[in-house]
């Protein structure tokens, strides 16, 4: 293919960072875009042109990819920008008044004013939060959590001072009986020695003794299910991949945690990064993968720093690389890929397109990833939390593991508590703990307030009422109660929460994050948001009953006919607000009475 490039040259700074990719291919497109963005803060025509020349990518396609991600700007933007989270947990904790102040002082959000509204930054336990970024020879990022208008204004002017070095914290830190969170907030996340001193790499040693099929048998017998939301049996996924004769096989660790209200994977990566690396190594060994990609969402600078360190240390000690731990013939290494602001890239096939340097659009299934995944090869995709269960299984044995939780949902589970709750954070409990017990663990709603609703499972999940707190948190009980645990979001709303604005935010989120590939989701999420504005704002087209009907019909087609889980679940939360909380109907009735 002969490339036709625009007649524009890069600046010297842009050329230097792009030239580092010389000799590489299309799959380095996203890293190259990041390199330019980190250096100058936006992607100019000259820079994109030069990336295309070096990586041999057609400019129209590179433009299509760059414009897919919200963290990249294709028009000039100052080096300093603050991303202010306006998503669910932050909205409940004052993001709106924060944004109003910023609008007053700096002007409306946008490149010129130096601040942007951001979807969930995954730090919901410290809401409201913001992430400051400054491009330069060494790009700087600073998490402001929790933050205030004064702090955002100061950082917007001065720039981020350092990569945030705060320790990962969980409310249960140090409590006995923790398995997944055992080390989080307790050991030094930078130190491989600390990790080994607390049992690290014992599981990999066991895995190497058991052999790949032995590991798969343990994981299958432990009934481990995916923790990213879909709850697919992990052992079956590994086994199906391991059996594929085609080589190579790939492993993708899905750390693109972007479901609003979800921050468990960030805590694991920041608090126990070696566990993620060890777990990926075990998965790679079991499924016959020689290479693993850790796809990390772009808004997690601290996790990036710690994981890079962990991978480097692990390589030094032969926990990654050739003949790992002296096991002849087992070679495995990990490459980190940073996302760039696209919720959809957490979809298990969109993540492949993103890594390969294409737009992060989901693929049509079948074929399934175990057969044809990353680069068209058999691929295992696992969520971070799913993977870190594996060392627990191998260390304690699958029988002991299945004794944790219930018969249908085995093991420990992480839940992300945020919103109007006294002690927000990630909590580890066995499956089967009731929602009420979990809320009690987190101190319930603040004193003097009353519980109004709990959003379970995130924006793609559903609401439950205060009279449903005896719901045991298991896959099977959630299903029976017609709700979902999703990615473990437990977002608490008390009587001060503005449910109308909350629902509008959910609708806006899906409209923003739809990839645009299929009609039901691309246009349906727009019509859903429009109808929600009419209902909440009490300005129906004709009657609110008709708007409700429209909403249901659009919701149904999104669920039935969208390509991927994003569109299929984009109506879940609003539907549950309608049917379980009855709140949208009450908007309608108020309108009818007035």
């Amino acid at each position, binding site marked *: 293919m002969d490339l036709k490039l625009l007649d524009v040259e890069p600046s010297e700074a842009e050329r230097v960072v792009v030239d580092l990719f010389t000799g590489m291919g299309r799959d380095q497109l996203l890293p190259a875009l990041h390199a330019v963005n980190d250096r100058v803060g936006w992607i100019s025509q000259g820079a994109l042109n030069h990336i295309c020349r070096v990586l041999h990518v057609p400019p129209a396609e590179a433009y299509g990819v760059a414009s897919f991600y919200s963290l990249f700007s294709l028009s000039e933007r100052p080096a300093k920008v603050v991303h202010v989270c306006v998503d669910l947990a932050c909205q409940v904790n004052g993001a709106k008044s924060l944004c109003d102040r910023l609008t007053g002082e700096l002007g409306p959000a946008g490149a010129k004013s130096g601040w942007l509204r951001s979807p969930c930054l995954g730090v919901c336990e410290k809401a409201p939060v913001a992430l400051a970024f400054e491009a330069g020879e060494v790009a700087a990022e600073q998490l402001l959590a929790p933050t205030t208008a004064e702090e955002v204004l100061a950082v917007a002017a001065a720039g981020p001072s350092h990569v945030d070095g705060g320790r990962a914290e969980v409310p249960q830190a140090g409590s006995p009986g923790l398995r997944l969170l055992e080390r989080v907030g307790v050991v030094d996340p930078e130190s491989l020695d600390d990790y080994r001193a607390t049992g690290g790499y014992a599981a990999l040693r066991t895995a190497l003794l058991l052999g790949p099929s032995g590991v798969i048998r343990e994981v299958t017998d432990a009934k481990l299910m995916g923790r990213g939301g879909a709850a697919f049996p992990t052992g079956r996924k590994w086994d199906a991949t391991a059996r594929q004769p085609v080589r190579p096989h790939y492993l993708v660790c899905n750390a693109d945690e972007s479901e609003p209200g979800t921050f468990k994977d960030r805590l694991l990566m920041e608090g126990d990064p070696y566990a993620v690396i060890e777990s990926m190594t075990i998965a790679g060994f079991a499924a016959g993968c020689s290479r693993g990609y850790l796809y990390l969402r772009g808004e997690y600078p601290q996790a990036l720093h710690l994981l890079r360190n962990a991978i480097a240390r692990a390589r030094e000690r032969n926990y990654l690389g050739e003949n790992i731990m002296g096991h002849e013939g087992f070679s495995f290494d990990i490459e980190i890929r940073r996302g760039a602001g696209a919720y959809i890239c957490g979809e298990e096939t969109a993540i492949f397109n993103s890594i390969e340097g294409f737009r992060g659009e989901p693929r049509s299934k079948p074929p399934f990833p175990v057969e044809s995944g990353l680069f068209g090869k058999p691929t295992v995709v696992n969520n971070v939390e799913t993977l870190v269960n594996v060392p627990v299984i191998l260390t304690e044995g699958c029988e002991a593991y299945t004794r944790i939780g219930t018969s249908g949902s085995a093991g420990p589970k992480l839940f992300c508590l945020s919103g109007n709750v006294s002690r927000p954070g990630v909590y580890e409990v066995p499956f089967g703990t009731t929602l009420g017990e979990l809320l009690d663990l987190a101190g319930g709603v603040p004193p003097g307030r009353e519980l109004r609703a709990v959003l379970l499972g995130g924006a793609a999940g559903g609401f439950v009422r205060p009279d449903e707190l005896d719901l045991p948190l298991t896959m099977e009980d959630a299903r029976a109660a017609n709700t979902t645990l999703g990615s473990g979001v437990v977002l608490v709303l008390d009587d001060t929460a503005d449910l109308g604005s909350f629902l509008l935010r959910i609708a806006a989120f899906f409209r*923003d994050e739809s990839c645009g590939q299929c009609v039901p989701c691309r246009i349906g999420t727009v019509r859903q948001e429009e109808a929600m504005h009419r209902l909440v704002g009490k300005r129906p087209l004709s009657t609110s009953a008709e708007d409700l009907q429209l909403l249901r019909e659009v919701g149904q087609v999104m669920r039935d006919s*969208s390509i991927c889980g994003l569109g299929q679940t984009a109506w879940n939360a609003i539907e549950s607000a309608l049917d379980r909380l009855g709140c949208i109907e009450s908007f309608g009735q108020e309108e009818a009475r007035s």
Partner: protein
Amino acid sequence: MTIVEIGLPKRLVELTLDGESVRVPEGATILDACTAKGKSIPTLCYGDTLKPANACRVCMVEVEGARTLVPSCSRKVEPGMVVHTESERTKHSRKLVLELLGSASDLSTTPHVDEWMSACGADPSRFGPPAPPSDDRDDRRAGEHDEPDGQTAATVRQPIKVDNPLYVRDLGKCILCYKCVDACGDQWQNTFAISVAGRGFDSRISTEFSTPLPESACVYCGNCIEVCPTGALSFKREHDKREDGTWDEEAQTQTTTICTFCGVGCNLTLHVQDNEIVKVTSPHESTVTHGNLCIKGRFGWQHVQNR
């Protein structure tokens, strides 16, 4: 019409289609099975010369046991499959997809869509009056949008792009079916002049930085126009004649001949109106071109009528 390579004999797969038993060759799609049974399923992003894009979701059918509906244009038949093309869920999906499309894009030059809409009772106007055309669609950023008030329905309506003498891009008619991108890219032309840019409802077919076509990689083969299902992409001559009211398909004849420019032997179909060539297409079933041409065959015919 799908081109069927005559290879090794294929096993027949038996499935149930709307209660009737059907046997089709292994590897056929549900759409093929429907066609074989004389059932007409609407399609828009499906292209007989392209790989399924699975984007428009007009052709969705119900397969028993599947959680969601499935695209009939790409899903291969399996033994024992039980397919419903006229179930309540299928009809609801078809109606809503057509309504959503009609509410966002101008479908006035999309063949058959009026029949499909009236057959399923689709009414795109029930989402509200269309929002006025916007001229900022090329600059919209992923992940942000202006808050709507719900009083109008957002559309892709926008000014027509005329930046060269051969093509017109009326992207207010675009349904983002990906066919032009696939024809321009690795499926046929390997020119890669256009791609989908942006995200979500703000996705659009674009050159890099929405640069005008003459500065882009476009080679004016016209293969994107050949596959466009809505008339969003059209030949300038056809567009101009439609504008001044002189485009009359009824009065046109079509004659297939062979291009004289080089030795490849591409098939040309000359569309002639009032003894003048007004458009050149290529038969999709031609084993030489599969509907594709180059700029010479597509546009190099003016000399024929210089009298």
